[in-house]
């Protein structure tokens, strides 16, 4: 099985690679559209700022490549936000797989960024949560979030409910960092690889 990890200007993908190493899954880290398109599965990870990341993806034509993918795609953290229609971070139009607006957390008393282990609850049929409890702890670091919407497959709560996971057709997305979310995160990655 060929796994492509999308290479772009959003930082720290080393954790994702090491997590796949631990599972024993080989991968290619690439920004070559051809390699991405022919992979069996694609991972779109990253931490970073939305408008900077979008500018880079557009320049490389990767935004359209990603949107046109037919194989299972897993987007995490900023990757998930970039799959939405628009982000308030840098007020930028994103790839638009999910017809959802990413917004900054509204907070009076809450610490922002939302950092740490929070529980997520599966909603409906969520193949990535197979073998896990209905409520699991995973690791979050973010200041912007997607509200709960028609594509939400797991919900988290921080002052307000928001989407911890989204799914539409072959696109799977997680706001949290499965790659550093202990055993639960490992199972989620394995579930994606088993799709």
């Amino acid at each position, binding site marked *: 099985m060929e796994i492509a990890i999308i290479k772009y200007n959003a930082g*720290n993908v080393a954790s994702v690679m090491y997590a796949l190493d631990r599972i024993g899954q080989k991968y290619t880290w690439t920004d070559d559209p051809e390699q991405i398109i022919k992979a069996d599965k694609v991972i779109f990870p990253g931490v970073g700022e939305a408008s900077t990341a979008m500018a880079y993806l557009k320049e490389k034509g990767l935004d359209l490549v990603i949107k046109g993918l037919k194989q299972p795609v897993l987007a995490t953290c900023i990757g998930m936000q970039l799959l939405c229609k628009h982000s308030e971070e840098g007020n930028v139009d994103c790839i638009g797989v999910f017809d959802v607006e990413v917004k900054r957390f509204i907070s009076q008393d809450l610490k922002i*960024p939302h950092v740490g282990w929070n529980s997520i609850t599966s909603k409906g049929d969520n193949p990535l949560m197979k073998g896990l409890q209905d409520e699991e702890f995973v690791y979050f670091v973010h200041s912007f979030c997607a509200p709960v919407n028609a594509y939400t497959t797991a919900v988290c709560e921080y002052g307000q409910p928001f989407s911890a996971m989204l799914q539409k057709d072959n696109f799977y997305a997680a706001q949290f*960092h499965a790659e550093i979310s202990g055993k639960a995160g490992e199972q989620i990655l394995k579930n994606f690889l088993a799709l």
Partner: protein
Amino acid sequence: MLTKRIIPCLDIKEGRTVKGTNFVDLRDAGDPVELGALYAQQGADELVFLDITATVDDRKTLVNLVREVARHVNIPFTVGGGISSIADVSALLNAGADKVSINSSAVRRPELVDELALAFGSQCIIVAIDTRFEPAVGVDFVHTHGGRRITDKKTLDWAREVENRGAGEILLTSMDADGTKAGFACDLTAKVSSAASIPIIASGGAGTMEHFTEVFTTGKADAGLAASIFHFKEIEILALKNYLATQGIPMRI
């Protein structure tokens, strides 16, 4: 519900854990990778590796160590000690560190916080603040060089400043409480936590499980960090987390 975090801190010198540990079940108690993986398995929510050497050769050792930790540990970890440039941070993040912690270099040149936040995002920039109460003035001041050298920065002002400059979290160590095992500096921690709207990791003074309850309630900390009580198994992480859960503190068990 967002849980409070329990964070063991490992001091590293020349790629090895120092200060000793009491883990007889470890093949090599000085091996930071093995110890880190064990803590992760026991329920630690994050790890902090603090490099207490900073020669050029040791920096290379540290980067190699970070790579090994990232390969073996499936929870987030932070690396601190001797970090003073974008290149330093880049090397550590590329090797697999999730966050870095800066201290003296930020005091020397506060713009570094802005530069790092811009380059890597606030989420991976922790500013460590070593603080000590100055009785003559009646307020807490930031200290550097392991608490030996006082600066002209008041702790609360500096906490607000690093937040405004883009720090994602503050690691607050009370030099008055550190090493006493008499409890965290809860009053100060609460003040800093209220002054800044970013998460606060409290450090220094942990001796009992009750001390963690206090720092999460009256101290308003988001995370509690300790070293020796974990290394010498005076408190076991899982037992601590189970206890805190019974005290109504949200925990990932």
